[in-house]
C-alpha cells in the first residue's frame, strides 16, 4: 500500500516536472517572439528606449564606472545609481555583448514564472490552478513588456518573488535569504520597499487571521522576528540611499484628450483611463481586455474565500493606486496579482456548471482566442517599437559626421541620439533624473510654438542647442498639426537653421548662432 502511494507520488512529481518544463518552454517562446518578429522585419536593434538606456549603463559599468555613474549625454548631466540589474547586465555584456539585454530579462522572466508557480504551491493552490495562472501570466502583455525588454523591473520582480517564497517558508535560514532578496530588490525604488513592507504586513495579518483562537503565542513571536529581521535592511536602504519613488520611463500620464464641446466629460475621463490600461486600446504597459474581464471574474469568484485572499486584494489595491500615482509601468508588478485572479477566473468560468456543453466550449474557445489575440497583437506592437530601422541613418549621421552639440528632439528619440548618435540631448524620457526637467520641457514647447526668431534664438542660446531633430510623429500631431506652424515656419525661412539631414522619418537642423 505504502509502495503504491510512493509510486503514485513519484509519478505525480515526474508529471509535474514535465509540465513545468513544457510550461517554461512556452514562456521562453513567448518572451523571445517579439525579438524574432523584429529581426524578421529586418530590425536588429533592441526593443524600446528602456533597453537602450540599460544597455548604455551596462557598457559604462563594464568600462570602469562604479556604483555611481555620471551621465554626460544630457544637458546639465545626471547621476545614475547602478543596481543589481545593471551589474548583472554588465557582467553578461562582457560575455555576450548586446545580447545580454535580451538574455537577462528573458531568464528573469522564466525565473519569475517559476517562482510564481512555487509561491502558489506554497500557498495551497492546486496544480490546475497553478498551471492556469502561470499560463495566463505568460500570455499577458505586461509580462511581455517586463521580460522581453531590458527592464530593471524584471530583476526587482524576480527578487521580490524569490523573497516572498523564502519568507513564506517556515525555516530560519530561509528568512535570512529572504531578507537578502528583499534588500536587493529595495535598491530599485521606494515603490519596491513599500511593496515588500506591505507584503510582510498583509502576510502576517493573514497568518494571524488564519490562526485558531487561543492558539497564539508560539507562532506570533516567530513571525514578528521574521518581519523585524527583513524590515531592518529595507529601512536602512530607504534612509541611506538617495532613492527615487519609481523610475518610470513610459510616462503615459492620465491626461484626458481634448474632445469636442458638448461631449460628455465622464465618458472622456473613462476613455482616458481605458487607453492607459488596456493594451488592445494602445496602452504600452497594460492588460488585454479579456485578461481584465477574467481577472474581475476571478476576483468575484474568490470573494467567498475573502479571508484567504485579503492580502492579495490589498496588495492589488495598493498597486492600482501606485499606477495612478507613479505611472503604468507598475502594471508589471500588479500583473502578477491580476494573473492569479485571471487564472482563477478562467477556471471559475469552466467549472460554473454549464447546462449546455456546446455553449461552454464555444465560450472557452473565444476566451482563449481572445487572450491569444491580445498577446499576438501586443507582440507586434513590441516588435514595432523604437528604434525603427529607417531611423538609424539619422543617428549614424550624427555619430559619424557631426561635431558634438546638444540635440533637441522628441523625448522618445532622445535616448536613441544618446546611444546611437553619441550626442548629448536637452532632455529624454527619464524625467526624474533630469535637472530642471519641467523648465526644459516648457522652453522646448515654447520654442516649437514660437514664430518669432528672436524668441527662438534666446531659448536656443539658453541651452546651447546645436541641433534640432524633427521626426514624423512631431509633424503629425505630437507637436504640430499644421505644416507651417510655429517653429516649422522659422526653419524654412530663417538663416539661423540649416538642414543637415533629411529622411522620411527624421530631419535634422543645425543651429547657426
Amino acid at each position, binding site marked *: 500500500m505504502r509502495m503504491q502511494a510512493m509510486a503514485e507520488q513519484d509519478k505525480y512529481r515526474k508529471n509535474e516536472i514535465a509540465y513545468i518544463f513544457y510550461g517554461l518552454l512556452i514562456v521562453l517562446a513567448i518572451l523571445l517572439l517579439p525579438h524574432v518578429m523584429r529581426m524578421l522585419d529586418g530590425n536588429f536593434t533592441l526593443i524600446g528606449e528602456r533597453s537602450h538606456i540599460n544597455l548604455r549603463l551596462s557598457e559604462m559599468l563594464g568600462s570602469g564606472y562604479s556604483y555611481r555613474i555620471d551621465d554626460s549625454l544630457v544637458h546639465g548631466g545626471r547621476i545614475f545609481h547602478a543596481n543589481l540589474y545593471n551589474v548583472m547586465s554588465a557582467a553578461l555584456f562582457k560575455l555576450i555583448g548586446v545580447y545580454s539585454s535580451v538574455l537577462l530579462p528573458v531568464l528573469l522572466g522564466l525565473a519569475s514564472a517559476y517562482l510564481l508557480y512555487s509561491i502558489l504551491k506554497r500557498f495551497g493552490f492546486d496544480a490546475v490552478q497553478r498551471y492556469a495562472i502561470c499560463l495566463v501570466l505568460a500570455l499577458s502583455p505586461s509580462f511581455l513588456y517586463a521580460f522581453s525588454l531590458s527592464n530593471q523591473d524584471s530583476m526587482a520582480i524576480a527578487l521580490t518573488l524569490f523573497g516572498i517564497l523564502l519568507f513564506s517558508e517556515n525555516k530560519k535560514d530561509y528568512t535570512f535569504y529572504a531578507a537578502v532578496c528583499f534588500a536587493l530588490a529595495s535598491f530599485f525604488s521606494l515603490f519596491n520597499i513599500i511593496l515588500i513592507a506591505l507584503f510582510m504586513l498583509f502576510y502576517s495579518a493573514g497568518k494571524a487571521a488564519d490562526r485558531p483562537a487561543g492558539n497564539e503565542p508560539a507562532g506570533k513571536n516567530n513571525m514578528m522576528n521574521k518581519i523585524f529581521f527583513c524590515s531592518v535592511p529595507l529601512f536602512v536602504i530607504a534612509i541611506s540611499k538617495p532613492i527615487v519613488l519609481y523610475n518610470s520611463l513610459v510616462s503615459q500620464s492620465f491626461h484626458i484628450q481634448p474632445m469636442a464641446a458638448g461631449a460628455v466629460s465622464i465618458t472622456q475621463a473613462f476613455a482616458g483611463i481605458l*487607453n492607459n490600461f488596456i493594451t488592445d486600446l494602445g496602452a504600452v504597459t497594460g492588460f488585454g481586455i479579456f485578461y481584465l*474581464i477574467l481577472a474581475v471574474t476571478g476576483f468575484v469568484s474568490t470573494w467567498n474565500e475573502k479571508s484567504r485572499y485579503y492580502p492579495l486584494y490589498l496588495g492589488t489595491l495598493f498597486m492600482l493606486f501606485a499606477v495612478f500615482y507613479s505611472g503604468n509601468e507598475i502594471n508589471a508588478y500588479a500583473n502578477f496579482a491580476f494573473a492569479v485572479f485571471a487564472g482563477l477566473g478562467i477556471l471559475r468560468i469552466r467549472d460554473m456548471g454549464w447546462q449546455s456543453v456546446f455553449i461552454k466550449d464555444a465560450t472557452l474557445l473565444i476566451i482563449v482566442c*481572445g487572450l491569444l489575440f491580445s498577446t499576438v497583437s501586443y507582440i507586434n506592437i513590441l516588435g514595432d517599437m523604437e528604434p525603427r530601422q529607417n531611423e538609424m541613418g539619422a543617428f549614424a549621421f550624427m555619430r559619424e559626421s557631426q561635431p558634438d552639440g546638444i540635440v533637441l528632439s522628441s523625448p522618445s528619440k532622445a535616448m536613441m541620439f544618446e546611444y546611437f548618435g553619441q550626442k548629448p540631448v536637452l532632455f529624454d524620457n527619464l524625467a526624474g533624473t533630469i535637472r530642471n526637467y519641467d523648465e526644459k520641457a516648457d522652453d522646448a514647447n515654447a520654442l516649437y510654438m514660437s514664430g518669432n526668431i528672436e524668441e527662438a534664438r534666446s531659448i536656443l542660446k539658453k541651452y546651447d542647442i546645436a541641433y534640432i531633430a524633427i521626426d514624423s510623429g512631431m509633424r503629425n500631431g505630437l507637436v504640430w498639426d499644421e505644416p507651417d506652424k510655429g517653429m516649422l515656419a522659422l526653419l524654412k525661412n530663417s538663416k539661423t537653421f540649416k538642414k543637415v539631414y533629411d529622411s522620411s522619418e527624421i530631419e535634422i537642423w543645425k543651429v547657426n548662432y
Partner: protein
Amino acid sequence: MKKDYYWILAIAMLALALRLYFAFQTPAFTGDEAYMTLRQVEHIRATGMPLTYDELSYGGRTHIFAPFFYYFLAFFNLFLPLDLVGKLIPNLFSILIIPIAYLLSWKLTRQRDAAIFGAAMAGFIPAFFSNLNSISAYSVVFPMLFYMIYCFIDIDEDNNAYIFMALFFVSTLFSSITFLLLISMVGYLVLAKLENFRMKKNELEVTMFSIFFFLWLQILVYKNAFLFHGAAIIWQNIPVQILADYFAGTNIVKVISLIGAIPLTYGVYSISHYLFDEKNKNAYILISMAFSAALLVWLKLITTEPGMLCLGITMAILFSRFYQFVFDELKITRLNRFYRPIWAAFIFIFIFSSVVPSAYYAGRAAENSLSIRDISAMQWIKINTPPDSVILSTPGEGNLITALAKRRNTADSDYLLIPNINKRFKDIKNIFTAYYSADAARLLNENGIDYIYFSDRARQEFKIKGLNFADDNTCFRPVYDFDGKVQIYEVLC
C-alpha cells in the same frame, strides 16, 4: 390565432406599401452612406471581397467595418438590380419587426388584441421610417435583435439558445449596435437578481458567450482602429467641429416625434407598472433594453437614430400591456358600453401619433435624397475631369464623389483611421469660407485639390451664400453650373 396572422400580415403589408411608396418616390438614395454601401456591394460583386483599401476616399485609405451587410445585399444583387436591392431589401426586412413585436407582445400580455396593437405600433415607429431610403443595416439588425430577445425570454425551450447564438453571431457581423442588446442582457440579469427571480442557467450562459464573442469580434475587426484611436473609437474619430452635432443631445419633443406620443407615454407607464406593481420577468429584458438605449443616447455613446429606433420598438411592445390593462379595466366598469368608441379613439390616436409622423418622416427621407442637380453634377465630373482629380466637397458628400463621380474626395463621412482629421476638416471649412483667393489657393494646393464641388449642402453646413473667392478668374474657373444651386470650379493656381 390564424386570424391574428392575417391581421399581422395586413399590418405588415400596409407598412411595406407605405415604405415602398415613399422609397420609390425618387430614384436616388438618402445620405451619402447609402452610396458607400452601393459601392461596397458593387465591389463584392466584381471581386468577391469588400473594398478595404479605397484609393478614392481621402486620396487613399483603409476602411474597416463589419462586412456582412454588404455581402447580404450582394447576395440579392445576384438576381435583382442593385438600385432595386437598395430600395426593396432593407424595407422588406424592416417590416419583420411587426410579427416579432407581435410575438413579444403576446408573451407579455397573452391577449391577441393587445399583441396585434403592439405589433402595429412597432411597425409604425416614425424613427424606423426616417431611414427607409438610406440602405441602413439597422433595418435588418433591429428585427434580429428583437427576435433574439424573444428567444432569450424562452431560452430553455427547443433550440432557442442556439438560435440566439446564431443570430447574435450574424447580427454582430452586420453591425456593432448589438452592443445595445448586450447591455440590456446584463441589465436584465441585474434586475432579475434584485427582484429575486430564479435565473435560468442558459440565460447566464448565452449572456457570457455573447459578451466574449462581441468583444473578440470587435477586437478582431477593429484592431487597428482601437490601436489608433484608443477608447475614443466610440466617437469614430469624428472631427471635433461636428462631433457635438453628430451625437446630438435629444429633447423630449424630438423623442416624441421620433417614437410617437402614445407608445412613449404608455411605454413609460408600463415600465413603472412592471417595476413597481407587477413583477414580470419577461418584461425586464425589454425594460432593460429601453433603459440601455436611453442611457447610451444620453451619454452620447450612440447616435440618436439607433437609440430612438430601439426605444421606439421597445415602448411599442410595452404599450401592449397598457392596452390590455385599459380594456380589461374597462370591462369591469360602466364605461364598458363605450368600448367601441374608446377603441376607435385608440386607433385614431395611434394613426395621429404614429402613422402620420411615420409618413411625414418617410416623405422627408425621400425629399432629402440626392437631387437631380447633384446627380448631373457627379456625371459631369465623371465625364469631364481627369481620372486622378481630387474633388473638394463637404465630408457629407464625399461618398457621392467616390461612388458616382469615381473621383478622389478630400474627406467623407467615414473618419476612422484618418490622421489629423480635425485639421483636414478645418482646412475644408476654411476653403469654403475663405475671403481671399490667396488663402483658399494655399489650402487647396496644400491638399492637392483640383476641383471644388459647391452645393446647397455646403451652403447650409458652412452658412455661406457663395464662394467669396469665386470671382478670381485667374485661380478659379467655373466649369459647371446647375440653376445656380450646384457649381463646380476648377482650381488653376
